[in-house]
């Protein structure tokens, strides 16, 4: 049977898109292949590693676990959407660099997006709350200590900056 195309209307990083994509594409494929947002990584493709994490309607989700059509009408934020109007880095991105929380970098976009959801709901998280929030994001370089420090530093920056 030929694969059917579906119409997909989504808002990604504050921009509206009307796309026509194969019905068996995942949100991950649409973001990477159709929109060129390669900050979204494909790791395990079975919902365990969190490298493909994006924010969908305010919640962190694995974009490998969502069929394209299921994202109809939703608002998506990827790591590319964190850039400021003049190209400046988000406080979370700054903090990851300052604390040395980026090693190979493959988990970093997902880590930052899960952390962003946490900080939006809880501006002063405890270490345990940070660990819980990033528990669905694997860092196989195992640099978790610096990542937790980065989230703590970002929380401080964001409280000060009122972001």
């Amino acid at each position, binding site marked *: 049977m030929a694969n059917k195309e579906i119409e997909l209307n989504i808002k990604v990083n504050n921009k509206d898109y009307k796309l026509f994509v194969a*019905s068996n594409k995942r949100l991950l494929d649409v973001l990477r292949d159709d929109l060129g947002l390669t900050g979204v990584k494909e790791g395990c493709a079975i*919902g365990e590693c969190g490298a493909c994490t994006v924010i969908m309607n305010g919640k*962190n989700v694995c974009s490998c676990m969502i069929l394209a*059509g*299921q994202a109809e009408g939703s608002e998506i934020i990827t790591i590319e959407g964190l850039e400021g109007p003049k190209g400046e880095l988000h406080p979370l991105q700054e903090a990851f660099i300052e604390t040395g929380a980026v090693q190979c970098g493959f988990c970093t976009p997902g880590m930052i997006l*899960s952390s962003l959801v946490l900080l939006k709901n809880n501006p002063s998280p405890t270490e345990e709350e940070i660990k819980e929030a990033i*528990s669905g994001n694997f860092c196989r370089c195992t640099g978790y200590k610096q990542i937790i420090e980065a989230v703590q530093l970002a929380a401080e920056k964001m409280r000060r900056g009122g972001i």
Partner: protein
Amino acid sequence: MHNFNFIRPDNLEEACDLLVRYKDRAKLIAGGTDLIVDLREEKLANCLEIIIDISNLEELNHIKEEGKYIRIGSGVRHAEIAKNKLIKKYAQVLSMAASVVGSPQIRNRGTIVGNIVTASPAADTIPALIVLDSILVIRKGKEKRKMFLKDVFEGPNKVNLKSDEIVCEIYFEKLSLDAKSYFIKLARRNAVDKSRMNIAVVAQQNKSKEITDIRISVGSLTPIPGRFKDAEDLLLGEIPTQDLIQKAGKKIAEEMINKSGYRWSTEYKEPVVKSLIDRVLNRIVEVE
């Protein structure tokens, strides 16, 4: 990846009609956390033509108190169950179980009934829903039927639902505010891991400490989830002692061997289940 048409019905009635029309040529998708893996591995039947997305149906998205019952729409996600105040108050065991499913990302997508229809023996919410004596509301077209959750399981990853049926709700009686309930998940790591074993218990005692209600379900022990009646009968009406708790643990281990046979994992599971029941009961009942 399988090829298929993707349809997102506007309401439950339309979804039911589509299922009746396509039967086993259709698959429902809600959270998708299991189905998308199967789609990619091309594990589904070759006759698959259509995926029906029910993840946005408002009619499947409620948690409400109705008389003595709590009713939960089949599409409610684990993250919602875990933080819901009604469920925390009247069914703590379910709140605890939902809060340890998968990872935050999985809990933001995976749904309560999705976890039932995939029927993994290691599912975390199933033992909790079993000790709540949950009932499923199932629709086929316009017809409705009800079924006890415990009767829906046929074997590991197998449920006795027809391809044109859709589970639209699960409900259970609120626990008495004097009852205590608890859930423990045992896994190799804290997050993103399948349970090696999990245990859900509801217990209530009267003023003289006699146990007036006791319900025990342990996941990953038996091919079909259920309550451990022999152990429950041993405890019911008694004032619990450490000795009695040990005996209850022994009964559960015996029942596991009766139902599953003596397997390679039994040597591990037997002492562990005894220890888990000891840990849970000592936490929620007053022991003489």
